[in-house]
């Protein structure tokens, strides 16, 4: 089906289609990556913003709480009689974040505090050797925040030391404790498990981590060195108090488990410089854009399908096109063949016609010349032999007369054929009685029947209607058919004429049991010029026109004629004649 050239075309086509498909997938991948990097950037920005917000809100709330105490501490009215108890109480209530607020007198003794249950009233810092921070704030006059320390209650908390002055005179200090757990519950929301936060101080020591069971105040970079890569750089940045974003890899025995995105922001709380970080796995980014991936993938797949569909459609069209071309060529070839064949057949037919014509002319000339030969020989003989006997003279004259008749019959036949051929045969139709016609015909043939010692049996039904036909022509039909029957019969045979009445016509059969003929000959006996094998024709004589004339006469009057025959069994010629319609209506 595909020739060499179109196969190459097909391969080229397939390569182009594959290139298109792979370029689509390439673009898809590239788009994915670009989208991912954009989304990741956005995600980190978002994360950073969140971190900043949390950090600043922690910073603000811590500073605000301390500021409240600073405001009381900066009062110029001196130490109130209740040793600031009511002020501390209201600060405690407003702040809502302190574990306890206490007032330490300038001697270092805790004299008041709120809530009272948590205040060790009367405890002297010097006695309990906890005066270092007290003295530091007295000397510096600055607020001091300790690192988270273990409290007596067992949990951790930061101690905030605020010096109290009356004018320039040192009057003691406030101590406030903020429990770590309070901070945590306030700002760390367990939103999702994949993100977590950690808090380190400016020395990189861990203050708090959502995940990972690390000792407090351990160096976070050191404790995580074995399970992460790239985190130490971030911690270093955090220690410097910067804010920003970064990435690190989580390792498990040296293999990468996941990539995490980190955002960090500093928290400045008086002397404490902390850094808050929030880390999330980068798969969160993928989770965000997975639907985009999916949609892009669908677009790519649809595009590929479209290309495949269009290209297969194209292939199909081309295929059909070439097929229809081939088909057309085939059809045209077939048509040419057929027309050639029909031309050849026509040529054969023409040649056959030409041969028949030549043969016919040769037969006609023979038939016309034969009587002339007899006449000429006889008349020349008579001319030469004047004194021959009377009997001989009569014999010769008989020959002459007989051959003149034969000649004129021949000419009549030729004229008939010519009329039939050109549709000029005229029929003088009239009511004709069949029986009478048969009688006349038999009289014409009487001598030849007698010569071969043959009899004719006529089967006529009773009350046979008249037929509408040309009487002379009907006689001619009978004579011709009977003549043939006689010619092709053996001596002593019988000829039968059957007449049968049908609906609107009469069917007449002339049956002989003579030599008959085969199907090939039967097919052609009505052809003009056709003679059954010239040798047998010669034996029986005739121009080969008799049956053509019969057929012309019958069909010229709207009837039909058929012949059946079998070799050595005889032949049957059946023809139809119209009934006389007037007779029927009367």
């Amino acid at each position, binding site marked *: 089906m595909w020739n060499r050239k179109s196969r190459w075309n097909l391969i080229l086509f397939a390569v182009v289609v594959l290139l298109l498909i792979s370029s689509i997938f390439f673009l898809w991948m590239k788009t994915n990556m670009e989208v991912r990097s954009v989304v990741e950037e956005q995600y980190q920005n978002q994360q950073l913003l969140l971190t900043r917000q949390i950090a600043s809100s922690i910073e603000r709330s811590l500073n605000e709480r301390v500021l409240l105490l600073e405001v009381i501490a900066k009062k110029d009215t001196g130490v109130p009689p209740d040793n600031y108890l009511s002020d501390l109480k209201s600060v405690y209530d407003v702040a809502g974040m302190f574990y306890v607020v206490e007032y330490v007198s300038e001697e270092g003794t805790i004299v008041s505090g709120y809530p009272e249950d948590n205040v060790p009233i009367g405890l002297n810092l010097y006695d309990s050797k906890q005066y270092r921070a007290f003295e530091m704030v007295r000397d510096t006059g600055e607020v001091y925040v300790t690192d988270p320390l273990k409290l007596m209650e067992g949990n951790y908390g930061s101690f905030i030391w605020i010096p109290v002055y009356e004018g320039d005179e040192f009057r003691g200090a406030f101590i406030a404790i903020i429990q770590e757990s309070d901070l945590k519950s306030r700002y760390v929301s367990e939103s999702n498990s994949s993100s977590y936060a950690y808090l380190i101080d400016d020395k990189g020591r861990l203050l708090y981590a959502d995940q990972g069971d690390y000792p407090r105040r351990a160096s976070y970079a050191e404790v995580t060195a074995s399970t992460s890569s790239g985190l130490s750089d971030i911690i270093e940045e955090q220690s410097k108090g910067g804010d920003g974003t970064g990435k690190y890899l989580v390792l498990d025995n040296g293999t990468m488990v996941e990539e995490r995105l980190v955002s960090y922001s500093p928290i400045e709380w008086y002397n404490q410089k902390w850094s808050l970080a929030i880390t999330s796995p980068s798969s969160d980014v993928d989770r965000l854009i997975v639907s985009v991936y999916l949609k892009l993938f669908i677009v790519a797949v649809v595009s590929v399908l479209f290309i495949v569909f269009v290209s297969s459609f194209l292939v199909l069209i081309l295929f059909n096109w070439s097929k229809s071309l081939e088909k057309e060529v085939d059809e045209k070839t077939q048509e040419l063949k057929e027309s050639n064949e029909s031309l050849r057949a026509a040529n054969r037919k023409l040649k056959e016609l030409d041969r028949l014509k030549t043969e016919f002319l040769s037969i006609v000339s*023979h038939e016309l*010349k*034969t009587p002339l030969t007899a006449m000429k*020989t006889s008349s020349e*003989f008579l001319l030469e032999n004047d004194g*021959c006997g009377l009997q*001989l003279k009569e*014999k010769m004259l008989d020959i002459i007369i007989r051959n003149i008749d034969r000649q004129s019959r021949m000419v009549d036949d030729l004229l008939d054929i010519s009329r039939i051929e050109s549709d000029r045969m005229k029929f003088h139709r009239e009511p004709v009685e069949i029986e009478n016609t048969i009688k006349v015909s038999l009289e014409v043939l009487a001598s030849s029947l007698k010569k071969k010692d043959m009899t004719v049996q006529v089967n006529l039904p009773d009350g046979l209607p008249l037929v509408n036909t040309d009487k002379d022509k009907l006689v001619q039909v009978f004579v011709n058919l009977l003549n043939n029957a006689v010619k092709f019969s053996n001596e002593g045979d019988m000829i039968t004429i059957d007449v049968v009445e049908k609906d609107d016509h009469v069917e007449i059969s002339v049956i002989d049991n003579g030599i008959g003929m085969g199907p090939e000959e039967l097919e052609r006996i009505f052809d003009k010029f056709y003679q059954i094998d010239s040798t*047998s024709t*010669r034996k029986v004589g005739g121009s080969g026109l008799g049956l053509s004339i019969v057929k012309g006469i019958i069909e010229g009057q709207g009837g039909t004629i058929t012949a059946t025959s079998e070799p050595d069994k005889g032949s049957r010629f059946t023809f139809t004649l119209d009934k006389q319609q007037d007779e029927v209506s009367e």
Partner: protein
Amino acid sequence: MDGENISGKVLSLMEENPGITTKEISEKLSVSESQVKETLESMSDIRQKVLIVDDEMDALIALKVALETEGYNVVEAQDGYEAIEKVHSERPDVILLDLMIPGIDGFEVCKQLRSDPLYSHIPVIMLTARGEVDDKVEGIELGADDYVTKPFNLKELKARIKMVLRRNQD
């Protein structure tokens, strides 16, 4: 019975007994007397014998009458097979052969005669209504001595018969 065989025997009988009658001969050879007479007649017939082969009875009869009047002994045949048969039995001096005859046609008859050394010397004049040159050439090639187109001139035909007979005698 073969006429030739009888004629040989008849001759030998007549040699033995010059006074023998036809009746005695017929008795000795156990054939009919008329056949013996016929044989004797034909043996004593010194006329030249012409075989006319034609299926047209009228033409044949007219020619036969004319040639018999001219002094020929005429035998006739109406088809190819009969013609060959008559040549064998009658040994004609000349054959007038029509080409369009039933059975085997004139050309074929001529060919068969020419291929048989016993009869190949017998001159053949072809008679035909067909006057085409091709036919004439074919006829002459097959060994016909002459070719006459129908309808022929009686005088001419007689002259041609004489001519081929004379040529044959030489």
